[in-house]
């Protein structure tokens, strides 16, 4: 088991004919992901290294049975692409694109909430279920199968923490990047719910950062609804207020959204918070025992 992506994933990539889109689609396929289609309006009938390209998501779904979409198009076209994927009946839409306008994200989020499609991202590295499927840009070579579910707002920090865990012998059920934007399609809570229900996952590591209140909300949810151990890390203790730290969503406004407040909220609900990535792996050893 794993969550969200696995052997049953049938992936259609929006933006497959772009440079980055081609590179990562083929990389995902090389990993073993079933990449069944691409979508680029006007390029229907072509193929990218054997992957058929369609003009619309609807054609792709109809002809290939695609159930998962990866959106790789530039920011000004991304919201439209997500909405098209939803309209075509795609279950899971993973959006890698960074820099989508906040108002586009607001409309997309509120529309999708009424239907049954799930959005992960935007501005995220994607989802990797080691040994099963990789949808996105996570460098799979650093991760192996295991019992730690990892969910994060940041890409490279996920690799750092995943790698620290790997060095102590831990593998992952699934690694999910929910993205660094102010309106993520999926929240920590959504992922905690899935990991809680996943029999393979024995420990959930959540990696947050400054800005917003998603970590505080997750703390409340963990106390009420998660029976598995949860371990957290928060980045941005030294971030000054009013400055956006790289991610559109990573900003301390006034006294809200600080790393200290998030760590405190989590600890108040019994969630242990590592002070640096190395300490996270040390606590994981305490919780699960030594694996090396």
């Amino acid at each position, binding site marked *: 088991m794993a969550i969200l992506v696995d052997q049953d994933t049938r992936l259609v990539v929006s933006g497959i004919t772009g440079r980055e889109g081609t590179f990562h689609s083929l990389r995902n396929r090389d990993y073993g992901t079933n990449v069944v289609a691409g979508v680029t309006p006007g390029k229907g009938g072509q193929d990218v290294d054997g992957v058929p390209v369609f003009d619309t998501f609807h054609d792709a779904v109809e002809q290939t049975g695609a159930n998962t979409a990866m959106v790789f198009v530039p920011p000004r076209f991304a919201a439209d692409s997500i909405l098209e994927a939803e309209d075509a009946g795609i279950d899971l839409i993973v959006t890698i694109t960074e820099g989508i306008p906040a108002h586009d994200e607001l409309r997309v989020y509120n529309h999708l909430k009424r239907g049954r499609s799930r959005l992960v991202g935007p501005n995220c590295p994607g989802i990797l279920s080691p040994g099963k499927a990789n949808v996105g840009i996570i460098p799979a070579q650093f991760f192996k199968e295991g019992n730690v579910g990892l969910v994060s707002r940041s*890409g490279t*920090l996920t690799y750092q923490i995943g790698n620290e865990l790997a060095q102590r012998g831990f593998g992952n059920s699934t690694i999910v990047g929910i993205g660094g934007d102010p309106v993520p399609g999926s929240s920590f809570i959504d992922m905690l719910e899935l990991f809680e229900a996943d029999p393979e996952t024995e420990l959930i590591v959540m*990696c947050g950062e400054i800005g917003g209140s998603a970590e505080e909300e997750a703390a409340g949810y963990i106390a009420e609804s998660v029976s598995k151990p949860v371990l957290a890390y928060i980045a941005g*203790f030294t971030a000054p207020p009013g400055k956006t*730290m*790289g991610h559109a969503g*990573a900003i301390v406004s006034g006294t809200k959204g600080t*790393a200290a407040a998030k760590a405190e909220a989590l600890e108040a609900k019994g969630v242990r918070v590592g002070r*640096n*990535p190395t300490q996270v792996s040390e606590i994981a050893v305490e919780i699960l025992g030594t694996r090396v």
Partner: protein
Amino acid sequence: MDLLEYQGKQLFGKHGVPVPDGRPATTVPEAVEAAEELGYPVVIKAQVQIGGRGKAGGIKLASDRAEAEQHAAAILGMDIRGFMVHELYVEKASEIDEEYYAAIVFDRSAKKPMAMLSRMGGMDVEEVADTDPEAMRMLHVDPLLGLQDFHGRRLAFDSGIAADVVRPVGAMLAKLYDVFVREDATLVEVNPLLVTKSREVVALDAKVTVDDNALFRHPDVAEMRDLSGEDEQERMAKERGLTYVKLDGNVGILGNGAGLVMSTLDVVAQAGGRPANFLDAGGGSKAEAITSAVEVILSDEKVRAVLFNIFGGITRCDEVARGLIEAFEQIKPEVPFVVRLDGTNDKEGRALLAEADLPNVHTEATMLGAAEKVVELAAA
């Protein structure tokens, strides 16, 4: 991107939000000319992106030409809590009867816009929220539906504002929502929202933040960017497509990916150091990007040592190493560097650095070890 008051009011005007007549000015003669055109009394207001202008002496009433000249001269060049005044806004004075507060904000938690209205305006709104939370009325808006007239009326009635201005205040809320959506704003705030002696409703101040990610569809707003308010290094980094935030320490930092860079700052601070900056070289950085990032970091004279913390995913460590070697050839840095490379092509990257044998470059195997080393070097 935060707009200055007069820029926000330009957007208000465009969408029919009533504002007092006014003119921007950058010199004393321009300000006096604007005052003469508008007719006295006028208010001369410092245009800076910080609150508390009035208390700092940045807002003055002028009832004749001599006063306009005197106040404009005093306010231009004034330092308001670290912000130098380069621009003025000269505005026709309003006779104040009542002061309210109105805003459209982006509620990240609910993932919806939220309209806010209070009959207690003209003061620190957080103070109002603390002392009299009932005085601040809030209503979420479905972004697919937009702010309807009834939303405005409901807020206006609930907030207990004077009955005779319920309709115009409700109408103003609807127009502020237009500004919020059509200009891709993440904040539209009016404090105070003024009821004049003749019972007219006008926006006396304007605080507008526009989403940087949406500037591509607002070229007119993109041109409003106030470069004078930006730090020199931050401007230089932006021109080179790097994400850089200046901090006040002496340890220069470069990493790839926002989260990892934030974490690196924290780890340096935990090791007893003070980060000089946040610099995200981004995913898939090529050697040239690394070279120009080094230039940006070293343009801050306070930097005593530099830490490279890279976990390569899309970014290849050999590219980072090549960029650093190139930077040493071009810039010949005088401060020590600590480099930690992990991830894609890390062995190749470390081999390149070993071969180049750059003066004063230390490689470390772990993030924690690298942080400790750079702090030690910065203190030496």
